[in-house]
């Protein structure tokens, strides 16, 4: 079994043709073996991670896994118990937050309750000594960007949750920081504004290629849409890190497979190599072909990761990687149908475009998936 610790995160080779951040003169964020403890409890364990200048890195992970803590340590709100934090080429571990030139949106906004919205947004500019007319011009600009122009004169307590969150974003962006730390910045927003804000952030990033962003989210769409790289946190450790698409396509661990997108993970055995980067495995009575990017050794028991949307209805003819299952449930979710099947004693979920006549419960269905879209994943090391 492969032993996965934070120190030996599996890093996926980038796929061809995916976005790569333009390495510009902006500020790099570096965690060098950073640990953080609250009281006696270590909630961030020897994290090493570099966010290259101009890159967006998304951190995802279950609730309580240390994402917020990772941001707070970059911002300087908590001191690491060991390790160094770098911003650009400076070791900022001992630097005060106000000397770090970062912008931050925190999880519960923390707007200044006694200031009007516009004063909240102006705060950073004033603090950094921007001239008056710059402030006068920049504040409405930022408010417009988040669609809050009409609310400049209100106090935070007079705003709805989403409105507050947008003000928090505007406040962080106003001083045009080199480094942006976003902690679930869109969690209180509806899909539409959220999309608009994602576009806004993407645009911002495009306009300011130097902007380095560390982005905590629990929304994988957000992560996949915005980020160059994604880190998956678990229990204070970085479980997996890699280029967004690569991580999704070839998850290095079971946890990564399950956490980033949905996944069917089938226990397979009898691995034999089959061509470059491919392998043949045995699943119940069937023999399946899959990619083996992690070069799992022959004979190894492992998991086969099949994304629900990669499952297709197979015709009657002979196709590779075909399985037959019994429909357990059919769920409609607006733009998709979710179907659960059982095949070879394991439960399989598939997602397909809505059908006028969805299959009925108990129907036998023959499904298949493309060998190039399924990946072998090592079983996680036992935890604890």
């Amino acid at each position, binding site marked *: 079994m492969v032993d996965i610790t934070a120190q030996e995160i599996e890093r996926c080779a980038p796929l061809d043709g995916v976005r790569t951040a333009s390495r510009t003169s902006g500020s790099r964020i570096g965690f060098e073996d950073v640990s953080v403890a609250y009281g006696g409890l270590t909630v961030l364990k020897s994290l090493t991670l570099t966010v290259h200048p101009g890159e967006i890195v998304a951190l995802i992970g279950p609730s309580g896994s240390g994402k917020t803590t990772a941001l707070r340590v970059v911002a300087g*709100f908590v001191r690491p118990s060991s390790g160094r934090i770098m911003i650009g080429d400076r070791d900022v571990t*001992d630097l*005060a937050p106000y000397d770090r030139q970062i912008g931050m949106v925190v999880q519960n906004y923390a707007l200044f309750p006694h200031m009007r919205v516009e004063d909240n947004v102006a705060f950073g500019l004033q603090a950094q000594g921007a001239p008056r007319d710059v402030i006068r011009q920049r504040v409405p600009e930022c408010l417009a960007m988040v669609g809050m122009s009409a609310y400049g004169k209100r106090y935070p307590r007079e705003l709805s949750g989403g409105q507050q969150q947008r003000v928090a974003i505007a406040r962080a962006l106003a001083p045009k920081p080199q480094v942006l730390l976003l902690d679930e910045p869109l969690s209180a927003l509806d899909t539409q504004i959220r999309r608009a804000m994602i576009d806004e952030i993407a645009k911002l990033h495009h306009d300011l290629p130097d902007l380095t962003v560390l982005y905590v989210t629990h929304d994988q769409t957000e992560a996949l849409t915005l980020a160059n790289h994604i880190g998956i946190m678990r229990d204070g450790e970085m479980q997996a890190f890699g280029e967004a698409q690569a991580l999704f396509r070839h998850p290095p661990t079971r946890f990564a497979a399950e956490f980033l997108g949905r996944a069917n993970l089938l226990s397979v055995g009898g691995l034999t190599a089959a061509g470059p980067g491919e392998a043949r495995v045995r699943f119940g009575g069937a023999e399946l072909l899959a990619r083996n990017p992690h070069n799992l050794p022959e004979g190894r028991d492992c998991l086969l990761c099949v994304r629900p949307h990669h499952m297709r209805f197979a015709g009657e003819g002979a196709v590779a990687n075909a399985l037959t299952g019994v429909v357990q449930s059919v769920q409609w979710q607006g733009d998709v149908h979710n179907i659960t099947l059982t095949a070879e004693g394991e439960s399989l979920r598939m997602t397909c475009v809505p059908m006028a006549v969805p299959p009925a419960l108990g129907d036998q269905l023959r499904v298949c998936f493309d060998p190039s879209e399924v990946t072998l994943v090592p079983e996680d090391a036992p935890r604890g």
Partner: protein
Amino acid sequence: MLAGSRAWRLAVWAVVLPLFAVLYGLPIAVIVLASLARTWNGALPGEFTLLHYAEAFRSDSLDALVTSLMTGAIASTAALACGTWAALALRRRVRLPARLLEAVFFVPSAVPSVSVGLGLLVAFSQPPFLLNGTRAIVLIAHFVLVFAFTFGNVTAGLARVPAECEQIAESLGARPFYRLRRVTLPLLTPYLIAAFSLSFALSMGELGATIMVYPPGWVTMPVRIFALSDRGAIFDAATLTTILGVATLIVLTVLSRVSSRAMLR
């Protein structure tokens, strides 16, 4: 925590610590030194002695300490109960009558303690209330003198209790008194303790009114200390002051432990 670099911190401390030492450390040190001095003829005391303490613990000064502690505790508790009650009753009321009532509750703090003592002595030495010569009149004087401060502290605290928590409590079926007991008051605890500590300390040091109304056998520490220092027994006065200070310190420390535990939550 006010984030800042280490140098900044050190700079702040370099300014504030000496200030602190001169303003508070020095007077307290002088009083303690005086309590230990046999003579003090130069800039510093000549010889040291524990005689004053031996004396203090032998004489009826300890009764005075107990009297002071009891007076402080009873008067402050009453003031806390009454002030909290008043603050709660006037909470969230914006209309004029409530505002006026609030002002009314502040009036006692606007009266010099001498006048309070005078007024009490006059008022309660004649029918219908004959209280002079009883301990109650001392307690009343202290109550009156600390009441407004308690009221003010609690009112300020109430303004900071998050409304949302109280609303949620209500939605969970908590009736006003239950909510008060389980949510409002616990969230208010730091302020209640602050109010109590303040009034307790005030009461421990109260002289102006007490000296006018105290009955025989209910001599508080400040009255003793005043009598001593008025007659030039400075070292004995300093000794009793030190004892008074230490006793208060102990009480306040215990209270603030409780408070910070309440605050942490």
